[in-house]
């Protein structure tokens, strides 16, 4: 899974106050494709941008477990149940790798989680849509993870070392996520008429939100230019979105399903698909927390955190007691 940066751009003042020579050296290193590591000097705005982006990414992994968890007990076979459980388990691990990468920048996981629960931190808009039939699980693996992989492959070369290494590990593990989703769609698309309708219905609902996962268009993406300069982002939202569409349309054709975009057509000259306008009003509404199940998602996270607090407290109390015993 993945996230884009929805926040307002940083004030440039903080950067100006910093040592110009160190800043120049930093910019040169980044421009030369060197990796920045935790103990290296870095501009404060670079650190803040990374904390925001990596924590949003981590939150997305964790919240992303919820729509799939909805189908865990109702997966149509033991095979599908085991696969879905393994995938959800991976997403939890991905959240952990990302929180760890953020912690190398001097924040602690508790404060990041608190920012999510208080509604100050964002996560990917895609998870504020409901999973209403089994085909949605196939569509999520195929489209949502497909879009995430498109973005994460590029992030393996992001300039911050711990983030890049987390991405390498995540990409390696995610390679099965998209394939299991596509395979589930293939079974439905070749099944009964009702199953095929389910698959088409899922594609109809997940297509546009998946395209929005790449974030706003480049001319309306306030943080993109600086993030590209710092090589936090390696490719723009529109470049990645186009690549995803070009890769995915033939996959839909192979399923015998149709993309819900009447304007979609192959352009022989550019060797890319042209596509219809995205409903950015809907996107910004979901960013603001007006998604169909936004409140439910956040509440599920807060409940999990609060209802399990006693487990964390008991574990710490036990460890303290053992340490005291040993010291005595």
């Amino acid at each position: 899974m993945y996230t884009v940066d929805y926040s307002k751009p940083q004030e440039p003042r903080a950067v100006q106050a910093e040592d110009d020579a160190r800043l120049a050296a930093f910019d040169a290193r980044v421009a030369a494709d060197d990796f920045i590591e935790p103990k290296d000097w870095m501009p404060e705005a670079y650190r803040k941008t990374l904390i925001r982006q990596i924590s949003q990414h981590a939150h997305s992994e964790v919240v992303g477990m919820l729509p799939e968890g909805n189908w865990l007990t109702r997966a149509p076979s033991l095979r599908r149940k085991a696969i879905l459980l393994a995938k959800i388990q991976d997403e939890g691990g991905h959240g952990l790798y990302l929180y760890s990468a953020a912690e190398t920048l001097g924040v602690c996981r508790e404060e990041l989680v608190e920012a999510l629960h208080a509604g100050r931190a964002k996560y990917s808009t895609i998870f504020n849509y409901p999973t209403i039939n089994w085909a949605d699980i196939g569509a999520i693996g195929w489209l949502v993870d497909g879009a995430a992989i498109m973005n994460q492959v590029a992030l393996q070369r992001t300039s911050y070392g711990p983030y890049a290494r987390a991405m390498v590990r995540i990409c390696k593990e995610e390679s099965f996520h998209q394939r299991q989703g596509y395979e589930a769609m293939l079974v439905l698309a070749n099944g009964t008429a009702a199953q095929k309708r389910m698959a088409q219905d899922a594609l109809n609902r997940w297509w546009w939100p998946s395209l929005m996962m790449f974030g706003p268009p480049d001319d309306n993406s306030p943080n993109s230019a600086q993030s590209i300069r710092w090589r936090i982002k390696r490719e723009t939202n529109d470049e990645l979105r186009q690549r995803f569409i070009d890769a995915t349309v033939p996959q839909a054709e192979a399923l015998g399903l149709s993309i819900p975009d009447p304007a979609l057509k192959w352009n022989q000259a550019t060797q890319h698909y042209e596509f219809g306008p995205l409903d950015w009003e809907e996107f910004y509404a979901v960013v603001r927390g007006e998604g169909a199940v936004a409140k439910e998602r956040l509440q599920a996270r807060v409940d999990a955190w609060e209802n399990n607090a006693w487990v964390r407290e008991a574990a710490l109390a036990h460890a303290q007691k053992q340490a005291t015993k040993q010291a005595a």
Partner: protein
Amino acid sequence: MKNITPIWEVFVRAKNGLSHRHVGSVHAADASSAVEAARDVYTRRMEGVSLWVVPSNAITASDPGDAAALFAPAEDKIYRHPTFYTVPDNVKHI
């Protein structure tokens, strides 16, 4: 025995972008001496750009006797690998 010099495990980052990797250990009285010793022992030929030293007794290792219980359960979860899934040959980029 008294006055034994503690052991430190040494990790070297070969270059930025790679993680620190365990290379061996040194004996040293304190952390900063351990870094110096590690520098002298393990990076004489430009093997790295960064060092970590960790007190050996701070590492908790899994018991080799538990290896089967810990790691064998992953063996039959072949569905965690992309090759488990059949995707038609004409479908690309997946």
